[in-house]
């Protein structure tokens, strides 16, 4: 049993716009690349050229179909990584203290040297956001690129998580969700940002912006299509008058 801090100075997290995400997996692979090279053990791949390839990813995109009662079915792309919960059950369940939540920014991390690979945290996480690295036997998870966001070896504009920097459609936003005036907090307020599975009581920091309504049946524009004349002859008459006015 590991304790959570009572409060954190910041609540750094992601805001993911489901109205804009095209499901391209750019964030998935950029994350894989950065985190293979950086924090902790590399993200390994088993049977990478074989019959059942599998590997460690800290971020994956799932796709769901939604079939409304009226109108066409919709496809929603849903990127998912650790939500850096305020009441993170993955931390409290950890028997060694390897899982912890940082006081200064709220990021949930695994201290790999203390991780015994027991997997309790993955079991406790209701979001399936942790993956055991099969080569190293340690638990891997999103670090919110803790080794990018403060990294003085990177230009300031690049001090953001790899997934946010690479997202082609700008569907991923990073910031302090503890500050109600931050850009991400304002975006959440404006767009009705939501918690994932709030009933779990984990108080996730990451928020999702819901898709805007699709396929609105509008037919208020019909007057715009009033015919200007009847038949080609009539149309030519209209044309002459219209050209006079130009």
């Amino acid at each position, binding site marked *: 049993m590991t*304790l959570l801090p009572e409060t954190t100075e910041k609540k750094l997290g992601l805001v993911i716009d489901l109205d804009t995400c095209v499901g391209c997996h750019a964030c998935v692979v950029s994350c894989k690349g950065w985190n293979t090279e950086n924090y902790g053990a590399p993200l390994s791949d088993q049977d990478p050229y074989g019959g059942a390839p599998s590997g460690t990813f800290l971020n994956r995109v799932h796709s769901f179909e939604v079939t409304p009662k009226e109108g066409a079915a919709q496809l929603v792309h849903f990127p998912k990584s650790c939500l850096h919960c305020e009441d993170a059950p993955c931390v409290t369940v950890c028997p060694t*203290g390897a899982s912890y939540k940082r*006081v200064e920014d709220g990021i949930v991390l695994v201290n790999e040297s203390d991780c015994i690979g027991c997997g309790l945290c993955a079991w406790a996480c209701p979001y399936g956001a942790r993956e055991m690295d099969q080569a190293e036997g340690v638990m891997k998870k999103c670090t919110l690129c803790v*080794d990018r966001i403060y990294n003085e070896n990177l230009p300031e504009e690049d001090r953001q998580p790899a997934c946010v920097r690479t997202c082609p459609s700008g569907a991923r936003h990073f910031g302090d969700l503890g500050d109600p005036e931050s850009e991400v907090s304002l975006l959440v307020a404006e767009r009705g940002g939501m918690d994932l599975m709030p009933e779990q009581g984990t108080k996730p920091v990451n928020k999702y912006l819901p898709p805007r309504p699709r396929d609105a049946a509008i*037919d208020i524009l019909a007057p715009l299509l009033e015919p200007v004349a009847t038949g*080609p002859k009539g149309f030519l008459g209209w044309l002459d008058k219209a050209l006079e006015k130009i």
Partner: protein
Amino acid sequence: MARVQPNVDTSPKVSDEVRQTTCYMCACRCGINVHMKDGKVAYIEGNKDHPVNQGVLCAKGSAGIMQVNAPSRLRAPMKRVGPRGSGEFEEISWDEALSLATDWLAPVRAEAPQKLAFFTGRDQSQSFTSYWAQAFGTPNYAAHGGFCSVNMAAAGIYTMGGAFWEFGQPDWDHTKLFMLFGVAEDHDSNPIKMGLGKLKARGAKVIGVNPIRSGYNAIADDWVGITPGTDGLFILALIHELMTAGKIDLDYLAHYTNAPVLVNEEDGSPEKGLFLRTTDGAPMVIDRNTGKPMPYDCEGIEPDLSGTLRIAGTTHRSVFQLMIDEYLDPRHAAENVARKVGIPATRIRAIAAELARVAFEEEIELPTPWTDFRGRTQQTMKGRPVSFHAMRGISAHANGFQTCRALHMLQILLGSVEAPGGFRFKPPYPKPAEAHPKPHCGVKPGQPLDGPHLGFVHGPDDLALDADGNPARIDKAFTWENPMSAHGLMHMVISNAHAGDPYKIDTLFMYMANMSWNSSMNTGGVMEMLTDQDENGDYVIPRIIYSDAYSSEMVAFADLILPDTTYLERHDCISLLDRPICEADAAADAIRWPVIEPDRNVKGFQSMLCELGARLDLPGFVNDDGSQKYADYADYITNHQRRPGIGPLAGWRGEAEDGGTGRGAPNPEQLDRYIENGGFWIKHIPEAAKYYKPWSNAYQDWAVETGIYDKPAPYLFQLYVEPMRKFQLAAEGVGERQPPDHLRGRLMRTMSPLPIWYDAAPDNLSASYPITALTQRPMAMYHSWGSQNAWLRQIHGHNPLYVPTKLWEEHKFTDGDWARVTSPHGEITVPVAHMAALNENTIWTWNAIGKRKGAWALDKDAPEATKGFLLNHLIHELLPAKGDGLRWSNSDPITGQAAWFDLKVRLEKVRAPAESQPAYPPQASPVGTGPGELKVKSKA
């Protein structure tokens, strides 16, 4: 347990060095930062300064490291030792490989250069490879455009002097309504995602027209799940509704299009349907100021859309009047097409009304004065903030050319092309069809070809026919069967070469195109053609040379393999002479350079061609003393001049310190300047020249300064494409050059100079095969290239056949079921999956995921080979027999574009076989298979 918070190093060293080059994980050519550790590639991210991607990078781009480390990389030149197709090779030296190639090709060049067929697939160096082929003297050269999107490119260029993607883009910063046709997930990849992101951020509306609601269409505000192949009919209905309501931009049509140009209407005249021209050849219009006929480009005239002129007994009417006759006809009304396109009439009209509302009631104005080529100055730039984009989905049909033309006509009627908020060209476009070369096919033994291979025909006289009227090219491009085949027909090369029709060839030389697998129709048949032997036991296609960086399915069918490098080990130029990376606001070009050196005995394809060209003594590749002219491709890029002062790269020519104008003498330090600048050069278009480019004096002058043209070349958009009418006239019996009789009817029907729609479904036996089967390319995988990529294949490792709810229920499918899919040509048995967001009569799968066992260094039990599959087995290069004694090509009759998406099938539930069918025996892998685990971290 008490809280103990460990110290984390939040500022680790990122890399030793960043090397900036150009991605090649797909065709988009984004700028990348390659982070190096200990001399090795450690991490790849987007280059924030790069015009194409501005820092973002897709899944493929970030996975480039797995492409560079892929076990499927070829290691050395190879000579076939087993039978063709077996994959059995021995490694040889480069000297032996190039000597062999020279021994094969030198006699071909000396005796009959056309017996070399040189086709270069997804080549990004076509201005170089075509130069090589021209020097060799064969007419048989093209890249992959014919089986990709030539309809989109050719229709765009014939209609408006530019097309989507590489030639232009929506005005993402101003558009308020964006309509996307037939683009699921790609082309172009990052820029469209970035653009959609901009639109979403400011709440602009996106309408997606696609039978499948995935990718970009998944985030469209409105989804139009159209019946495949009917886009043209739908677009013409939008045109009908907009014209009927007068919601078209009359001023724009009068000034910037050929709508006012006068057309001969005399029945039986050899000029019927042609333009009234001055003795100098300028099309004529009626000037509303004077009522007199005038050349279209006279200063100060007001061209009359409703002009009529009778001279010497012949009536001439404006193009616009022909359009009124054609498009106001009730057969185009929404209610008369609704059933066929699968969209209710009210919905079609609602979309037309939305286009009208945004174009004409949300007009924008930029406070920039501009002057057009007739001297008319306007104080502002008026904008119609409606934009469109389309790609293969509408073009890979037998009616694709006319459908693409219809879409451009819609854009133009709304006055939205090159207007703020609409669609904008990217330099070197705008460029009218007349400014492009015409095709050349003049062959002389031992001599170069008489000009560039590919181009734009303007009438029967420009066809590539020999003295007897037979096709001059092996792919039969630019013939009566497909007169406007601007990109050639790579997909017909193997079947024509095998059939010896129009003639036999000696050597098939291909680069970077997987023609024995996912890039061919009738894949099984093509494999047989490649291995077929004549009565003497000789291969029917005598010699095959192939160049690729990877162990693709095509490798096994070659006699000689010339291994290419990966994209991080080579020089390349993304040239203004070729497929540029320009933006609507700037001219730009870019390079690749070896950020790592190959650890194998491989050579960049283009460098290899410099050497092979010298060994063959090709003009342009040898010095006067016979020595090799260009040491490698980098030397060519730096020193070759196409015209004085114009070369492959436009930046830092001559002595320019600041990047230069685009013109100037070769600069030996040019590539160094590119590397210092992040791998690219950019020259911005001045504010006053940013819009209305085809007609803007300011843009035309800037383009001349930049080396894009040698003199200003303003032109009119061609709503009516007169060259098409010339082919109809020939079919009616006019002129010396006459089509064969069996093609007359089709030419008259399809070569309409105004966009039309015709139904390709009956030719594909839609009555018996009522379901359309499509493929899409996923965003995280490009063609076959991604299959070897350890990260990407975990995202798209196999490809179910997606089945819509109606068919799913009808066939009582459940999860895990398999289906037999039957077309008029063949059958496949494959796993199915349910998808609701899909046109109810369409099934689809991901493109090119299926693999043949033994290829790409994958294990034989890889899901790509056991559960993956290709639809290609169902598609034949010929249409089903019609009973007229002829076999018609499965392609667009205008351009020859492969009609992939006209495929019609039947579906039935079957017991699951052991693996997807058809299953082919494994090829031997010349590179073995990959490691069992990847656990790599570079040393900092």
